[in-house]
């Protein structure tokens, strides 16, 4: 076979036919890494495959379906759309597969959605409604754009100009202002000046995630320009989804690398960890709590920087130039744990599935809106796991996780506190005069 041109460009599904056709059905995409396999319970990390059970709902089924779509053998249907979209793109499949192989599962799934939208068949109606909200009101919820900064309180100090820019995101701005406030206060207490965007718009996470790449790209360009205009050197978020968008998917859509964005992207967990390690912040208030930390997918598995790549593929599937693949190894796993464990009185217990084996909360990237039962179910699974290890609280670092867990707790009456990382850190420093 002659060499073929290939790149990681998700707008061309042909780039991923190789990956789809090399899936060996080992279900490494579904099972917890076998080294970490805990037993017959908590043995999977793909919520879609675990919930819907038919092979077609696991990545291994989707790869086959993808081939058939590309070959024109399979038409669109409600079932196909459900298979493609009842999935949080959590990246468990990608990381699981890449333990042993070199297949781009996550990018394939993204590319399939992009193709679906291009073919005029996707996304789900609920997503279209949200896309309209974003287009018209610049936020996910369709709330008045003017209210975006309503989360601010008088005690929070914003700098007109600073190296650090806090990108709040739709969820923290409108639904979980406690996260935005906590983040802002942490920065204040750490005496780290920060700015906000004069006119912050949605990051476009859902748009990109459901395959509306053109709209997402336009938003990305606009947002990057807006940040550059402020002169910020670092963009900080307290939202894992936003983090991933800025750090990974913006460069991906613009065919540049993360390093070439023009500014650093950090998550609050990384930032606080750094502050503590350099002595700029000390978490000294005691909090007596037995908690477990839930790794948000976009902060962990999916967060390694993006580097565009194009080249050729030849015999044995060898590509040239060589490509260093993103396997989830260097996700933000340890920093939040180090921070939380440093709080006096905190007992950090790990859930059975942690780090790259974490079971997605079920909410992300537009999934909850289109498949609320599925999202609720996934969150429920995770809460059971949290209870199993005796946690009193489940802590994450993403407002979407918090939202979904909170709702799940309410629905099934489990007595479990649901907290965000920012809230805990704030509690550990508030009133202490923070430093040293």
């Amino acid at each position, binding site marked *: 076979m002659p060499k073929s041109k290939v790149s990681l460009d998700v707008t061309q599904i042909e780039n991923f036919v190789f990956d789809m056709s090399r899936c060996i059905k080992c279900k490494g995409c579904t099972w917890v890494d076998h080294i970490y396999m805990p037993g017959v319970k908590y043995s999977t990390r793909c919520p879609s495959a675990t919930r819907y059970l038919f092979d077609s709902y696991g990545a291994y089924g989707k790869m086959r379906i993808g081939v058939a779509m590309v070959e024109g053998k399979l038409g669109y249907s409600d079932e196909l759309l459900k298979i493609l979209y009842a999935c949080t793109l959590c990246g468990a499949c990608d990381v699981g597969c890449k333990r*042993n192989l070199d297949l781009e599962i996550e990018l394939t799934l993204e590319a399939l959605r992009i193709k679906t939208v291009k073919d005029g068949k996707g996304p789900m109606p609920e997503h279209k409604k949200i896309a309209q909200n974003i287009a018209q009101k610049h936020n996910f919820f369709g709330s008045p754009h003017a209210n975006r900064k309503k989360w601010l309180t008088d005690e929070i100090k914003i700098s007109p100009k600073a190296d650090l820019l806090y990108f709040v995101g739709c969820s923290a701005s409108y639904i979980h202002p406690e996260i935005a406030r906590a983040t802002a206060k942490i920065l204040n207490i750490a005496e780290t000046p920060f700015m906000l965007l004069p006119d912050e718009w949605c990051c476009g996470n859902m748009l990109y995630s459901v395959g509306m790449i053109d709209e997402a790209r336009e938003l990305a360009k606009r947002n990057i320009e807006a940040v550059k205009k402020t002169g910020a050197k670092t963009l900080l978020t307290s939202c894992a989804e936003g983090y991933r968008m800025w750090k990974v998917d913006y460069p991906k859509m613009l065919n540049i690398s993360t390093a070439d964005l023009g500014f650093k992207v950090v998550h609050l967990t990384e930032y606080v960890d750094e502050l503590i390690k350099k002595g700029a912040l000390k978490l000294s208030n005691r909090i007596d709590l037995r908690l477990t930390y839930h790794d948000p997918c976009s902060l962990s598995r999916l967060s390694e920087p993006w580097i565009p790549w194009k080249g050729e593929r030849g015999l044995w599937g060898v590509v040239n130039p060589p490509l260093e693949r993103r396997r989830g190894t260097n996700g933000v796993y340890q920093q939040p744990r180090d921070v939380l464990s440093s709080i006096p009185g905190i007992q950090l217990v790990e859930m059975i599935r942690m780090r790259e084996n974490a079971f997605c909360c079920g909410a992300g990237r537009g999934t909850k809106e289109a498949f609320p039962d599925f999202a609720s179910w996934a969150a429920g699974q995770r809460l059971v796991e949290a209870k199993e290890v005796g946690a009193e609280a489940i802590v994450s670092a993403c407002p979407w996780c918090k939202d979904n867990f909170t709702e799940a707790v309410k629905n099934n009456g489990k007595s479990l506190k649901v907290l965000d990382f920012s809230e805990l850190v704030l509690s550990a420093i508030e009133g202490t005069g923070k430093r040293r």
Partner: protein
Amino acid sequence: MAISKEAYKVLESIVGSEYISTDPTICEGYRSGPGGYESGLGYERVMTKIPGCVIMPRTTEEVQKTVKVCNRYKIPYVPYSTGFYGPRSHPHVSDALIIDLKRMDDFEIDEKHLYAIVGSGVIYSELQAEAMKRGLYIVIGGGGSQVSAIANMLGDGWSPLSYRVGLPHRRILGTELILPDGELVRLGSLAFQEDDYHWGEGPGPDLRGLLRGFTGHRGFLGIVTKMAIKLLPFQPEKLVPTGISPNTALELPERRVKWINFTMPSKDSMRKAMVEMANAEIGAGATKVPIFWRVIARAKSKEEFWELWSKENEERIANFHVLRVLLIGFTSEEQLEYEEKVLMEIVGELGGEARRTRPTDESWFKNADSAGMWLMCGGYVSVDYVIETLEHAIPHGENYAKLKRNFTPPLMPDYGDPGWFQSFELGHQGYSEFLVYWDPDENTDGVDQFYLETSKENIRKRFYTSLLGSHQPLYLTGPAYGPNYHKWLLKIKDEFDPQFICHPPVPLNHDVFVERAPWLHAQKDWESPELPKSS
């Protein structure tokens, strides 16, 4: 003929509408290829179809009812646990029903009496994790942690850990089997009373004899819905999972579990070391290390693999003799010390040298690495894997290496690697396995031809082989082994599957394949009576 509305209704009433589907997208998700075991080969292209319907029963009763419905309405069906075994696990005829057993994931363990009862949906790594919590362990078959424990116990079931533990056949205890015609037969102690799984031998003749044969039936003689599997005593220290993907490994408690790699001066010294170890009755694993695996383990990507591999040559391969030995202090730390002392003595006598060996296991206890076999080329099969003696194992591999040259390309260049071999059952048996790789995008006719040629070569040279039953043409191997084992196999099949609906046309699948594959016709020099006409 698609499943009739009436049949569908009946099937739906058995499992509920959530667990059955004829939707084309759902069915497409169950396609065998294009990737997987034996991917890109003629067999997959010619013999596999997507199912017409998928059903997911939860209980033995539901499975039995489903099979009876299939018999009533003449619906061909295929029992399916993970589908990992490639094309042979998938329907070969149109409009078949896949009976997807993944919901049958019940699990029970009797720690005191050393067995676990599992449903077909339980995979090895789940079982191993449960066993290890209790100071026990199992052998995970070469297929890997991700395969159904039951499915693997029915057709495979060995690894370097079989050195101590022996044939998987012995580890099958009380078992529930739904025969192709829908009759339920309980084997072993289960024949005497429900819920007693602890013993495998049934009253008088042991009907476990129907379950497999050497390398199994691949699902043509019914469905096992529950099986008790022996667990083996291990040692009390924990094997701790460490690392972040892709570099995850079990950290070994070195005073109780230890791998040691040795460089040996020759293949024969490696063989002798295995013999001496076995005679001294030490060790828990003893295997030649195939050089592929070492290179895969070192490579961080396919490209890096090929970069490293291109530096190899025939001479180096021919002189690469690494023996990997596992020691387990089952009794105590002192036992491990004793065995290590004896081992060093043996290796020293034979001119070998210990190499620095990581105190971890990535590959065998929780068998995380088997998927890595596909890293190199995307196509892979274990051509032949035979349990016999070491005396058989070594020439068997060498024979393959010679034969393989004629088919390289399309086979991956391996510089004459003769496969790997190891010792089983404390030296009473030896094992040889020969793996081949190819690029599925290339013309793979040569791989099909090689596969068939090895079968013929085994017969010519009087080697035992895994290529029995449905693995290669039954009318080719049948007269050669037994002789005429195929006669009995087909009679059993006729008796228990009179309608020939359990995974048709297995066990004559490979015979049918040869008929349909013009590139194999030149090799066909045996008689086949009329073959089933399957669509």
